[in-house]
Each structure stands twice: as structure tokens, then as C-alpha cells.
């Protein structure tokens, strides 16, 4: 009898524990399916936030895919604008979408918390390509913009494409509309298609293709950063070759527009502590991100500026009227 009671008690306790509310409701929305870059940002940052003791308990990761982040954006704007425990992962890709009017509202709808790092754009060719430098490539494209087939992981008008167009403009190519652009489902597939001889140049983020850089299967003509990057200090920047173009794909977070100044400042503070932790520096490096910090008002201003820039370039290449 006692045994039975004990069993019942234990079972009751177990059920109680299972239903008990988690210690904290901190939540990170990844506006994509599991496995993508935004999902990764949420999971890694969530894991480190609790590992570093910056939040109580676990950070719950919620996937809310749709419309390259538009569904999550609309959801937060309409239902969770005041939720002080909410982070939403985003990146340059999200701002590009906003700038091109593909989100339900503009950047001012949200409060932009911080960026913790950035993937750096690269221009790469196959290891037996005739192009040895950015000048070679741009020279050939200037002669005939359609002579080289270019590719990347976004469609025309996406960030990979825009970065290449910025370079082409810097090289003085007039007819950028006739450059051939092919979209693949990621930087890896674009690179393998280049190795198979289907396309001539790939413009994408370094992180996803860094294995091919290490193995020497591809040659990086330029990285689109201000300074040479820490993981590959030998790769030449576009700037050092006379093209004043940078193309970062930063990873960061926003939260609802109705969050109080106090809660907003608390999140910025927590994220900054996280940024300074050894754990983040290592994680960032492992995944090919350059750790770069911008937080709070500085970050908001940066996002607003990038939004303007992006809209301007999109108009120039005809993505938006």
C-alpha cells in the first residue's frame, strides 16, 4: 500500500514537474525553418545566454518561417510588440527585404538591439579559372558584361547579387543589367556548380564556403571587408585592390517596437556581455563570423542607414521602381 502510494506520489510529482512552467520565458524567434542561419543564431546565442548565466533557465527557440522573415515581423508587430522577453534573429538579408518593401512595415516598427558578428562577402572563382585578381575579372566584365556567368545563394536583387553589382559599379561597368546572374539554394551548391564548370564566379558569404577555401578548390579574388579578416588574413580585400566596396552580412536581433527603454537597455547590456564572452568569440570564429559589435542606438542608426543604402542600390539596378 505504502509502495503504491509512493509510486502514485512519484508519478504525480513527475507529471507536476513536466507541466511546471519554465523558470524564464525568454524566447528567441528564428524567422526560418530549423537548420538555417537565423535558426543557428537563435540556438547558439540562446545556448550561450543561459551558459553564461545572463538569463535564468533556457532560452526557448521558436521557429516562425515565412516570407524571408516577413511572417515573424508581422507577428511581432501585431501581437508581441510589448513583449520584454523576446528576441528576433535577423541579418542584412532581413534589412534588404525591408528596404525593398517586402515586409509589412519599415525598420522604424521595431527596436533594433545589437549585432554580434558578421559573415563577410567574398568573390571567388574556381582554382583553374583564368582570373587571378579582381582587376582581371572586372576587366573581362567591363569588356563584355555577359562574358562571365556569376552566381550566388540569393536571387537577383538579393544581397549576394547586390554586393556584386556594387563592385561592378565601382569598376565602372555601365551596363550592369546584362551581367548574367544564377541563383542557387546556398553558397555550397553555387561553389560546387562552379567547380563543375557551370558558372564562372560566385559571390556569397564566406562562412558557408570556407571549407572550399581551406582545401584550395576555389580562389578568393576579394573579401568585402574593411580589414583583412582574422580567420584568413591572407585573402585580399576589395578595398586593397582599389574597389571601395564592403559587403557584410551581419547577424543580430530586434525586439518589438513597444518595449520599454529599460527592458531594451537590459537586453543590449546582456548581449554586450555575451559578445565579450569567450564562448561567443569562439563560436563566432568557428562558424566563419567576424565578431563585430554594434548595439543600442548606434545599431539602430546603422540599420536605418543600411536600409537607405539598400533602397538606393535596389532602385539603381531596377529591383524597385
Amino acid at each position, binding site marked *: 500500500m505504502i509502495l503504491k502510494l509512493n509510486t502514485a506520489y512519484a508519478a504525480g510529482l513527475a507529471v507536476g514537474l513536466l507541466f511546471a512552467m519554465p523558470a524564464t520565458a525568454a524566447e528567441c524567434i528564428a524567422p526560418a525553418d530549423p537548420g538555417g542561419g537565423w535558426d543557428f543564431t537563435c540556438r547558439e546565442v540562446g545556448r550561450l545566454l543561459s551558459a553564461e548565466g545572463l538569463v535564468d533557465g533556457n532560452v*526557448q527557440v521558436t521557429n516562425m518561417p515565412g516570407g524571408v522573415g516577413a511572417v515573424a515581423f508581422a507577428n511581432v508587430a501585431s501581437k508581441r510588440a510589448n513583449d520584454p522577453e523576446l528576441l528576433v534573429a535577423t541579418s542584412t538579408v532581413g534589412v534588404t527585404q525591408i528596404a525593398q518593401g517586402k515586409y509589412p512595415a519599415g525598420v522604424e516598427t521595431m527596436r533594433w538591439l545589437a549585432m554580434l558578428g558578421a559573415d563577410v562577402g567574398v568573390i571567388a572563382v574556381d582554382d583553374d579559372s583564368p582570373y587571378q585578381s579582381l582587376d582581371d575579372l572586372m576587366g573581362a566584365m567591363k569588356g563584355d558584361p555577359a562574358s562571365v556567368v556569376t552566381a550566388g545563394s540569393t536571387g*537577383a*536583387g538579393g544581397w549576394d547579387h547586390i554586393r556584386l553589382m556594387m563592385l561592378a559599379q565601382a569598376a565602372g561597368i555601365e551596363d550592369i*543589367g546584362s551581367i548574367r546572374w544564377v541563383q542557387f539554394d546556398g553558397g555550397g551548391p553555387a561553389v560546387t556548380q562552379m567547380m563543375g564548370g557551370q558558372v564562372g564566379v560566385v559571390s556569397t558569404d564566406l562562412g558557408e564556403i570556407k571549407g572550399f577555401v581551406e582545401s584550395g578548390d576555389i580562389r578568393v579574388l576579394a573579401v568585402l571587408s574593411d580589414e583583412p579578416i582574422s580567420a584568413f588574413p591572407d585573402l585580399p580585400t576589395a578595398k586593397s585592390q582599389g574597389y571601395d566596396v564592403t559587403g557584410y552580412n551581419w547577424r543580430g536581433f530586434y525586439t518589438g517596437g513597444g518595449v520599454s527603454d529599460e527592458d531594451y537597455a537590459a537586453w543590449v547590456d546582456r548581449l554586450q556581455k555575451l559578445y565579450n564572452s569567450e564562448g561567443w568569440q569562439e563560436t563566432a570564429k568557428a562558424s566563419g563570423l567576424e565578431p563585430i559589435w554594434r548595439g543600442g542606438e548606434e545599431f539602430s542608426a546603422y540599420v536605418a542607414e543600411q536600409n537607405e543604402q539598400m533602397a538606393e542600390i535596389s532602385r539603381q*539596378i531596377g*529591383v524597385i521602381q
Partner: protein
Amino acid sequence: MSDRLAGFAFFLLATGYVWLSAGYTTSFGDPLGPAIFPRIIGIPAILLSLSLVIWPRHNATWAGPAGLMRQGVAVAILLAYALLLEPVGFVPMTFIAVLGLGLLMGAPPLPGLLVAVVAAPGLYLLFDRLMGLPLPLLGTWIS
């Protein structure tokens, strides 16, 4: 007869589909553009649907009035389950839906109730706790 109707419905769908594709234009991007592939698949669909209208083969028999009624109730339960999952919460709605569908499908009242009583919290535990997929326990109306 039902083939004719199906053919006609497909004809309307495919025609509308091809017609709408005219609106998808861009001044940049790939040579084919976003409108051509919809036409490549839409036009054969129009032809096939016309052939169904002209040469029908099959005739379906539909459920009687009582059957249609049951199906209508089931669809209503399913729609309510979808729409009220967030406001009412996962456990109460699952209870209602499992019970409702069970009774509709001929469950004896007591066993049907039992299944719903066990299933609603059980599935919550399975998904939310064991698999770590967050679900609303009680909805926004209650908590």
C-alpha cells in the same frame, strides 16, 4: 457528369492561373522571368481539363444528406481547432477536437471521453516537454 464539373473547375482554375501570370514581370533577373513556367504548366492543364469536359468517363457518387452533415460538422471542428488553438490553448482545444471527432465517428460516449482526457495532456507532454517543441498550454484568453 462529375467529370464534366471537375473538368470545368480545373479549366477555370488553370485559366485564372495563366491569366494571373501576366502580372508577374520584372525588369531584371533571369531571361525566362517569373511568368513563363506558370504558362508552360497552365496551358496543358487547360487542354486536359477541356478534354475532361468533352469526353467524361467517371461518375462519382456523393455522400447522402446525413453523410454531408457529418462531414460538415467535422470540417467545422477542424477549422475551430485551427483558429482557437492560440486563444484557447492547446490542451482544452485538443480535448474538444478529439472528443468531437471521436463522437462524430461513432465513439461510445465514455470511451470517447476517456481517449480525449488522456490524449490532450499526453500529447502536450510528448511535444512540449519530451520533444522540446513549445506549445501554448492554456491560451491567451485564459492565462
